[in-house]
């Protein structure tokens, strides 16, 4: 087991190489994650509070005001 990092590396490499259906599934996972993180998250789902404010106190004030205004 002294060369375990290499054994582990080969385990994954051989596993990925010998995949059949797995290659299609990984392609789907890759496309899905790309759409989710590089299209949806980037262009459609900004974190409203992090985008508008820098400090925690500013965020707290904003949310507090929002709640008070909606009563």
């Amino acid at each position: 087991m002294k060369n375990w990092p290499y054994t582990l590396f080969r385990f994954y490499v051989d596993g990925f190489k010998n995949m059949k259906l797995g290659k299609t599934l990984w392609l789907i996972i890759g496309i899905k994650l790309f759409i989710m993180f590089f299209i949806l998250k980037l262009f459609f789902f900004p974190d409203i509070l992090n985008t508008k404010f820098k400090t925690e106190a500013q965020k707290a004030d904003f949310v507090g005001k929002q709640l008070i205004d909606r009563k």
Partner: protein
Amino acid sequence: MESLDYSLVDWSRAQFALTAMYHWIFVPLTLGLGVIVSIMETIYYKTGNEEWKKITKFWMTLFGVNFAIGVATGIIMEFQFGTNWSNYSWFVGDIFGAPLAIEGVMAFFMESTFIAVMFFGWNKVGKGFHLASTWLTVIGATISALWILVANAWMQFPVGMTFNPDTVRNEMTDFWAVLFSPVAMNKFSHTVTSSWILGAAFVVGVSSWYLLKKREVSLAKKSIKIAAIFGFVGSILAAYTGDGSAYEVAQHQPMKLAAMESMFTGQKNAPLVIFGVLNPQKKAYDDGVEPYLYKVEVPSVLSYLANKDFNSFVPGINDLMMGGFPTKDTYGKEIMALSVKEKMASGKIAVQALSDYKKAKAEKNDSLAAVSKSLMEDNYANFGYGFIKDEKQVMPNVPMTCYSFHAMVVVGIFFIFFFLYLILASSKGWIENQKWILRLGILGTVMAYVGSQAGWIVAEVGRQPWVIQDIMPSYAAVSSIEVGAVQTTFFLFAILFTVLLVAEVGIMIRQIKKGAEH
């Protein structure tokens, strides 16, 4: 004063519901089929019979397809928290964040490590290590579900926190109260055991198709035997934990229970409706219209489900609106129930006190700040009612909640008898020749999905308008953004998830048609 467009709330809710329901197509199959695959591999490990290895690998492939298509679909809901529900995300603070963070780390390390051994490790690691990896993958997925359900349960029954008016956040004061809240424990056990039913129904459905086609006969018969036993155990446990969930709903969300039964007038010895047709003319709680056109009831059973006492009083929607009946507070103390109008008055005091506290702090008036804080704390249990404009808003969609609840119960009862019959038919060797039960087996897969989705509709539609029970309604939780932006992303998600679902079903069908030899 800000006036928010209610269509923004509706579209934000619709978008969250869409993503949650699509996500929930994949999750229960992972949880249920994962255990069945683990049991099958355990049999292979114990017997050394190569046929069980073949059976295990076949179902493991279908597990892998579902896992791959479904993985990370839940992250989209986290995107929505930051964009569509930013007030809520801030307001819940670390209470919601902590379980989700633990889930993220656990899911990543446990599932990604052991699932690799599960799929790549055949003939490369020892049989025992491979078996352990298979079990640990499904245990990891189940523990992931625990943290998500703990976060959800906290929204239904908020405990273990204190509201800090300076940070405008609910801060966790007791992690164990959040984790071990009775609502969380029941929700977790009921969700997991009902997912076992779905996994078993899926295995029975695919195996039934094989038997009807006279293909993979041995695999199908052996698989049905395992799935029927596992499904039967799951059905009994789901019924037991469902009873526990109903009790918790009665204690902490009585409006949801009343909506589940479409019960407008409360009573002692309250009956449980086992079949009924709702009256579409019933529009409001106080319109005097009978809620049912027709119903069949079992006397006193709802009283027992709600309070473990056949003679106990179960409040209806009208009682909850008008108050004035004996009940217990969060600490179990006997009190007279407040009307919704009284709660709204209390809630408005709490929100105004928060406003006064903020002003007093800004003006460095410590004595006024202390008085305002104390007033807010005294009324905090009704904080969310401060945002309610019309008392009728606290009544959820009764027909949707009621029909979903009864659909879930019917599906649950069906599976108890269905799996029991399958156990008998498998042991007697009848199963191959009874085409009706095989056709029912295929239909059962669809029924399991309907029941599983219906359960979540009960849980989530039934608790409206609350995002956090009594503390925050969806109206206060939603971000002030353009309705058009939410509509655009709603349709983007609808397209993305539909494509994923079509891909899953297509690949699954292709793999099933190939059979175990490939």
